[in-house]
Structures are given as C-alpha cells and as structure tokens.
C-alpha cells in the first residue's frame, strides 16, 4: 500500500472502498465492466480526453460555476443566532449549469468514454428526470440514440422532464416493475444493458453501481470541489470550515467533498432525505436507517429488511428517493471522515421557501435538504467561519411538487 495517509486514494485495485463498493454484477456484464475500467484508465492518462472534457465543460456546460457569498442568507441566520455566531455561507452554484443541475458534468465525461469505446447506443436510468435530461442532452450533442428508463410512477409525477427528454430525441421507457421508481428504473436499465452489451453504453447517474462507476462519476463530478477550492482560496484566502451537500446516491456531495478530503481542517456534512421522519418507514436515509448490503452492482448501506429484501425509499425529492447510497459515502461514514445527517420533507420545504424569499434563488428540493442543514449549522458556528454548500440543482422542475405540498393549485 502507498498513500496510506490519504483519504483520496480509494478505491483499491478491485474497486473497493474499504469493505464497500466492488463489482456485484451478472457474469454477462463482467467483461464489459472490465473493459470500461481499462478504457477509463487509458482516458485518464490521455491529455486529449481531459482537454475535450474541459472544453465541453467550459463552453457547453458553462463552467466554472460561480461561488456566491449568500450575504442575505448569512444575515438571516445571524438575525436569530447568538451574538458572534452565524458562519458565512457560500453557495456553489451548480444549478446554473446547462440543464440546471450538476448531473451534466458526469454525462459529458461518460459520453466521451462511450465515444472512445465505439459504443453507438446510450441508456440511462432516471428518478426525477434530471439525469435523464442531462443524458438525453449529451446523446443529442453526440448524435447517439438514447433510451431513458424511468419508473412509471415518476413518469407521471415528472411530466415536464419527460417531455424535455422526448424533445431532446430520447425514448422514455416507463418501468412498471416493482414500485415504478428509481430503483426499478435502474433494474430495467441493467436488464437492457445485459441484453445489448455489445453496442450500448450505460450512463449511470450517480456515484454508485459496479466499479468503476463510483470512481469515474466521482472524478467527473470532482470539478465541483476543485473549482470551489480555488474559488474560496481566492475569495477568503483560506479553506472553508464546513462543506455541506445533499445525498441521494451522493454524486454532487462526493464531487464537492473529494478534493478536500485530505484537508484536515475542512469538516464535511452529507444530508440524507429523512422523508416523513427517521422514526417512520417513509424515508430515504440509507446511512441513518439502513445496513450494508449488495444491490445494483455494489456493496453499500441499503434500506432493507431482516431478510435482505430492499425497502422502498420515500422522499419529497424524487432525486433522493433511492434506498441506497454511493459506496464511497458508506466508507467515509464508516471511518468518520464525513459526518452524515438528515432533513425531513418539511425541513427541506422550509429551506426551499427561505432560499426563494431571502436569496431570490429557487433551489431544487435535493439541495433544499442541504440548505436546511446549512441554516441550522451556520447558527451554531462562529461568524468568522465559512460554509460552502452545494446548490446542485435549480427548482423549476419541483414547482408542481412544492405547490402540491403547500396545498396550492397552480
């Protein structure tokens, strides 16, 4: 072993983050998974690949995203905090990316890999539709046919995104198996992949799934943390005290956290979706309410019963409505490098309203969970301390859900 003092050297050669991660897939997919790993290693070492990725991020996605000092939100927190308390809150504005969320960063990286591997057909799963839209977008950009698997329940509750994907030329295939949500969409995407492994590239949307997906999604999303690190050093001349991000699968969080993992002075907080509450059976907090298990190609914390059957998650945010979490988060949780907490549907809604009213930003419901924790934590921290929160998506897609939750008819 080398680099034993680094938290950034995972996964190991076999794709494990400590006891988590790995490659738990059907044998049919193993040669493909191994080829993807070889190809990713080659791409990582190829300056031309990095150049094309960075060029698209700059000119197509619109990076770097701003690091914005949320002065009004900071004042809002200080107005009720004890004297001398109320940390400075910065927002990493990944909601300003093309397609409105961080998802596009990863999709650009993966479609470049697909092109490099000569694949001619793209598939993806989606829950809220953000990853589906981002995948359909890059598929259109590269002129590749694209099939998006989306739970039938989600197709119904995310109609605007379904239409967006269709406009972008994707076929949206409603998934009726199971409860018809993200988990089932991922099952059907894997089934499609097994049957079309020769020509098809599966663009997984979060830092989960079989190795090397958790690693490569993290690497593509790490642009968030790399930018934030440079930006805060330029603005404040020092590193932040706390990073905060919402966790579904955890791709936006690992993207922000990873470049800071070896900075001892930087604390990190991941915020899971507590749905109706951790004391109910309607939440999506895999770390707080789950146990290690094996699903969708990796070993990680899962919501499951005593027999290892997977339990449906619940969150007001379709993007967090998943019974698992990326394996690197399970590892960071187990070694204590990152702290994980949760926010309920109601707490996220409250933060959503605060962000609209105080900052003039309509956040997605996913980062609204993070913002709920930010508002609480900032009030306990000293006024000269600094928080960076990942505002990973904008809330346009969520206005119907929020209206419904607030009892408003649009």
């Amino acid at each position: 072993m080398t680099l034993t003092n680094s938290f950034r050297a995972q996964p190991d050669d076999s794709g494990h983050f400590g006891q988590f991660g790995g490659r738990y897939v059907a044998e049919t997919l193993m040669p493909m998974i191994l080829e993807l790993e070889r190809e990713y290693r080659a791409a990582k070492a190829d300056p031309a690949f990095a150049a094309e990725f960075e060029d698209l991020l700059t000119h197509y996605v619109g990076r770097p995203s701003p690091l914005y000092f949320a002065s009004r939100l900071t004042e809002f927190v200080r107005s009720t905090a004890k004297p001398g308390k109320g940390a400075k809150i910065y927002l990493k504005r990944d909601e300003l990316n093309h397609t409105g969320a961080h998802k596009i960063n990863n999709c650009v990286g993966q479609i470049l890999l697909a092109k490099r591997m000569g694949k001619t057909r793209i598939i993806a799963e989606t829950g809220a539709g953000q990853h589906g839209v981002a995948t359909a977008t890059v598929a259109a950009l590269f002129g590749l046919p694209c099939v998006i698997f989306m739970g039938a329940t989600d197709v119904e509750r995310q109609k605007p995104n379904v239409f967006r994907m269709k406009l972008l030329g994707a076929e949206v295939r409603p998934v009726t198996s199971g409860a018809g949500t993200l988990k089932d969409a991922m099952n059907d995407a894997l089934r499609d992949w097994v049957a079309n492994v020769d020509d098809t590239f599966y663009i997984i949307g979060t830092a989960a799934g079989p190795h090397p997906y958790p690693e490569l999604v993290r690497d593509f999303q790490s642009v968030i943390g790399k930018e934030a690190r440079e930006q805060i050093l330029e603005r404040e001349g020092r590193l932040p005290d706390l990073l905060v991000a919402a966790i579904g699968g955890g791709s936006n969080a690992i993207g922000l956290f990873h470049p800071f993992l070896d900075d001892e002075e930087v604390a990190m907080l991941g915020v899971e979706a507590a749905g109706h509450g951790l004391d109910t059976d309607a939440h999506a907090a895999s770390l707080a309410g789950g146990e290690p298990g094996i699903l969708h190609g990796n070993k990680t914390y899962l919501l499951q019963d005593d027999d290892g059957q997977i339990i449906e998650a619940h969150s007001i945010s379709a993007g967090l409505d998943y019974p698992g979490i990326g394996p690197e988060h399970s590892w960071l949780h187990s070694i204590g490098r990152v702290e994980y907490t949760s926010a309920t549907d109601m707490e996220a809604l409250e933060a959503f309203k605060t962000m609209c009213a105080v900052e003039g930003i309509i956040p997605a419901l996913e980062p609204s969970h993070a913002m709920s924790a930010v508002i609480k934590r900032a009030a306990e921290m000293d006024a000269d301390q600094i928080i960076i929160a990942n505002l990973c998506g904008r809330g346009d897609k969520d206005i119907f859900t929020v209206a419904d939750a607030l009892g408003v008819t649009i």
Partner: protein
Amino acid sequence: MSRLADSFARCRAEGRAALVTFVTGGDPNPAATPAILDALVEGGADVIELGMPFTDPMADGPAIQRANIRSLEAGTKTADLLRIATEFRARHPQVPLVLMGYANPMVKRGPEWFANAAKQAGVDGVICVDIPPEEDAELGPALRAAGIDLIRLATPTSDAERLPTIMDGASGFIYYVSVAGITGMQQAAQSSIDTAVARLKTFTNLPIAVGFGVRTPEQAAAIGKVSDGVVVGSALVDLVAEHGEQAAGPVRDLVAKLSAALR
C-alpha cells in the same frame, strides 16, 4: 460423490443430458411450493433449482420478476425457503437441490450463516447471480467450507480470457447462460450453443448445463445433444403463474415431456 456429481454421472451413463428445472420458492405461496417441487421430481427432473425471491431480480425477465413479487407478497422469508429445502431433502434423499438467487438475501446474516443453514437443509449447490468470481470472497469460501458447490455462470460474453477466471473455484456444474440477456426472453441459435458448449469443454471437466430461453421439449432435445444438462425455468414459472396452487399437475406434465425429449 456429491448428489450433483452423482446425478450428472448417472445421466451421462444413460447417454442423455440431465434435466435441470427451476421454480421460484414461495410462488404462489410457501405452502404450495412442496407439491410443485414434488411434481418436478415426479415428472423426471434430475436437478432442482429453488429460486430465492428478491425484490430486485436484475437478471430476470418479466415472468420470473412477477414470480418473485408473488412470492414476497405471500410473505415468503428465507426461513421458509430453508424449511422447504429441509422437507424436500427428507422426501427426496437423492435428488440434488440448488438454491438460486441474488447476493443480498444470501449474505444478509453473514456468508457462514447462510452456508451452514443451507448445508443443514440438505442443499447441494448455490447459484448467486450477482457474485462474479471477482467478489468470490463474499460467499465462496463459506460455501466451500460447508461442502456446498458454488455453481458459476458462463455467458456468450465469456471469452477465452475470461473463462479461466470463471472456472477457478467453480464446482458442481457450469451454468451456460445461452443468451446475453435476461431469463425467459429469447432463445439462442442452436449453432451458437453447440459452439459455446464445445469451447467451454476445453476449459473445464465440470458438466455444462445450458439455460435461458429453453421452453419446449424440442429445444431441450436439441440442446441436450451437445450439453450435459438443460435448464428450464420461465416456462415452468409461467405454469405456476397460470395455475397457482393447482400448478403441480401442469408442471408435472411439462417436465415429463421435457424429460422424455432428453431420453
């Protein structure tokens, strides 16, 4: 000699392929499964695969997905599967029984617990769809220590570079998944099966059983000419879906036709 090895050897001595039959345990409910398993044996099945239901059967087509849902909705637990296996072993001391399913229910209480419980229930082999050789440590050592065969899968994507990895640590038999796809959907061309089985034989001395998409006695007969075993699953699961608690009769009839076709 293990029951699995014994069964394949006996079939070989009879100059025929073994009939390997799959049904999902607890479908339509745990109480109905013993009679269905008996029907498999009475119809002439040589090896029984008992499917362990899972909420997320990623390698299965619609027929077996629905069987998993029916079983779980009927309240089937791992304890029910083990009891069904134990009772089967008491009724059929010589018929090899294989548990087939997904990793999470198998490792939930730890691999040693599962391996020992399966051994005590008289289980001869385990097929775990989503534990490839790379993750063998998850279950393989515990099964080997308990004397249970770990049956590995080979597929149309398993090339010469891949096959030695699959064979290393495999026992019982090799399950050749004849189509790159999910269970019960399409059938592979016979010529591709002939070629694949011949190639597998150069990598292992274990019996080769061919499955996925095998539904009719005619298909079984053609595949049985080149392989050591023929696996039929979705066609039987379809009968359980259609006939529910009365499925034993129709299951026995189909298995008898499949068995006759192999003789």
